[in-house]
């Protein structure tokens, strides 16, 4: 028997901590000789700091967080890598009842149609400005989060200038529903189950989902300190194998009920399992009926756990777009190399898993599920389109960033 390795992982109570929870509770970590301890945290800042000082070996992290750390945007100096993604999708945008009433009147339709919801929101924003009313305020979970970037992307693509037309503030996920109920914010973008919690409490309506704004888009990663990844290569590889198997288990429909029950536990999300099950099934109660969302949250399949460097670069492009970091070739390189497909490939090679041959792809190129070149077996990717039809080609990053800047200049 090989020695048992202890790994401590930090997580926040969110649906997409599922792979970590399943790895521990359903024995996938133990099979790899890992004793996986999971520590629930209250803020992303704590996750980052506790990884920095070594309380956590690895953590459930916002996908842009390692990029932000390596660009020096965090208060603590820290080099992080993302050797694996923890799934795709899982977020939604919810608005309060009053805002929904105004949006419905302005023509907002189903949650799989971000363009109509966005156009309605733009009209409401214009009406409010015309009446001299306060700007609408939206909550996101962190400045360096998929939520912040997809909310802004959606708003901007619908003709709303985030900096000029609305306020965007940070609220911790478990406090979103309360903040909405208390009228401190008018809407928010957050991961499940916190949208469903707000709807169940009668405080809001889900108007669109991450899976519709950018299909099969990245949300959380496994975040690891660079020096830990380098000094614990084998241990990290074993963990990645365990998480890969856990992800596949999570994705099987027959396991969803079991998974929802696990996540509902007091030590994890501490929410009703029925609520979590719906989100796992992609059957979202919007507040106006159940909507079935394709690939709402994907813990496996379609290379859901592969750390695409094009994802890292898209997040970087948005950090530049919203003034978090200046664009430069060396910054782009720091962002790209924050994601480490090489570690992922080395870890999973012994399993003969189908993995992409490329480390980057053109985001938004696939409108239907498409077979692609893989190292072993068959691999189907996508669709990975942005709702506005835009395409992000990492090979033409400068042009993409330039076009964003022009759009901002025109609007401003």
């Amino acid at each position: 028997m090989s020695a048992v390795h202890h790994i401590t992982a930090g997580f926040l109570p969110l649906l997409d901590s599922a792979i970590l929870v399943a790895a521990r509770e359903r024995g996938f970590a133990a099979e790899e000789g890992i004793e996986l301890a999971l520590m629930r945290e209250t803020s992303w800042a704590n996750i980052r700091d506790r990884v920095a000082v070594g309380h956590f070996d690895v953590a459930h992290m916002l996908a842009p967080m390692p990029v932000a750390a390596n660009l020096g945007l965090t208060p603590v100096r820290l080099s992080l890598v993302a050797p694996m993604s923890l799934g795709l999708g899982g977020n939604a945008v919810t608005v309060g009842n009053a805002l929904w009433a105004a949006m419905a009147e302005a023509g907002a339709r189903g949650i799989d149609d971000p363009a109509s919801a966005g156009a309605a929101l733009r009209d409401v924003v214009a009406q409010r400005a015309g009446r001299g009313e306060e700007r609408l305020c939206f909550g996101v979970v962190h400045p360096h989060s998929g939520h912040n970037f997809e909310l802004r992307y959606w708003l901007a693509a619908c003709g709303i200038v985030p900096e000029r037309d609305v306020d965007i503030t940070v609220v911790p996920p478990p406090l979103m529903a309360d903040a909405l109920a208390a009228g401190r914010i008018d809407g928010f973008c957050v991961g499940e189950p916190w949208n469903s919690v707000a709807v169940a409490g009668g405080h809001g309506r889900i108007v669109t989902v991450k899976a519709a704004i950018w299909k099969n888009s990245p949300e959380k990663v496994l975040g690891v300190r660079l020096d830990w990844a380098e000094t614990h290569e084998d241990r990290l590889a074993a963990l990645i194998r365990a998480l890969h198997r856990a992800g596949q288990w999570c994705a099987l429909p027959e396991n969803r009920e079991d998974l929802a029950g696990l996540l509902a536990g007091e030590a994890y999300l501490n929410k009703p399992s029925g609520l979590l099950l719906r989100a796992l099934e992609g059957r979202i109660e919007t507040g106006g009926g159940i909507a079935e969302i394709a690939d709402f949250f994907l813990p496996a399949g379609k290379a859901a756990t592969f750390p695409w460097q094009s994802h890292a670069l898209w997040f970087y492009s948005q950090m530049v777009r919203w003034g978090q970091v200046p664009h430069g070739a060396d910054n782009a390189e720091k962002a790209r190399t924050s994601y480490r497909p090489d570690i992922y490939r080395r870890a999973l090679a012994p399993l003969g898993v189908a993995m992409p041959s490329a480390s980057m792809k053109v985001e938004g190129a696939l409108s239907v599920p498409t077979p692609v070149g893989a190292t072993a077996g068959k691999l189907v990717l996508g669709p990975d389109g942005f709702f506005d039809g835009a395409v992000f080609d990492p090979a033409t990053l400068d042009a993409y960033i330039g076009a964003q800047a022009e759009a901002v200049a025109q609007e401003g």
Partner: protein
Amino acid sequence: MSSRSLSILVIDENRPRASIIEAGLREAGHERVTIVHDVNAIARRIAEVEPDVIVIDLENPNRDMLENMFNLSRAVKRPIAMFVDRSDQASIEAAVEAGVSAYVVDGLRQERVKPILDMAISRFNAFSRMSRELDEARSALESRKIIDKAKGILMRSRGLSEEEAYALLRRTAMNQNRKISEIAQSLVVASGLLDGGGLP
């Protein structure tokens, strides 16, 4: 200018702990200390207080909101860096270990901030030690009560002396490799069931 006393904002939802920190800071000669328990509308407070140093407990989920505020020049005019020095690993570790985090206005000299952070860390540690001791004392008291109850049951039902009853509890605990209080607890529960007291 450098001798001007620093403005310190303590954000802690735990009121006793916040008071302990405040007292410590005042003892150390800091006059301008503000305590905030509720982080709603914190932006306005920060603008009013213009803190040089912000101390916040790590259990507060609003740290993410606070960090976002520091990135926005609207709420806080000066850029804020965390901890005394971004490379001061030992301070960061000690602070996180104690459960406290500090944000410091960039450019403030380390020798002015270090004592404040050290004080906050030692007070946090003292407070958690105190709470732990209190918990231990409470549970010791609870154990003693339950053991007394179990002894009473044994004395009544088996006609033992107090000493014999205690010896029986201790022997059983040793044989089962459990604590005396656990054995006593089981006995009290079982006896309650047998008496029918716990049943409808």
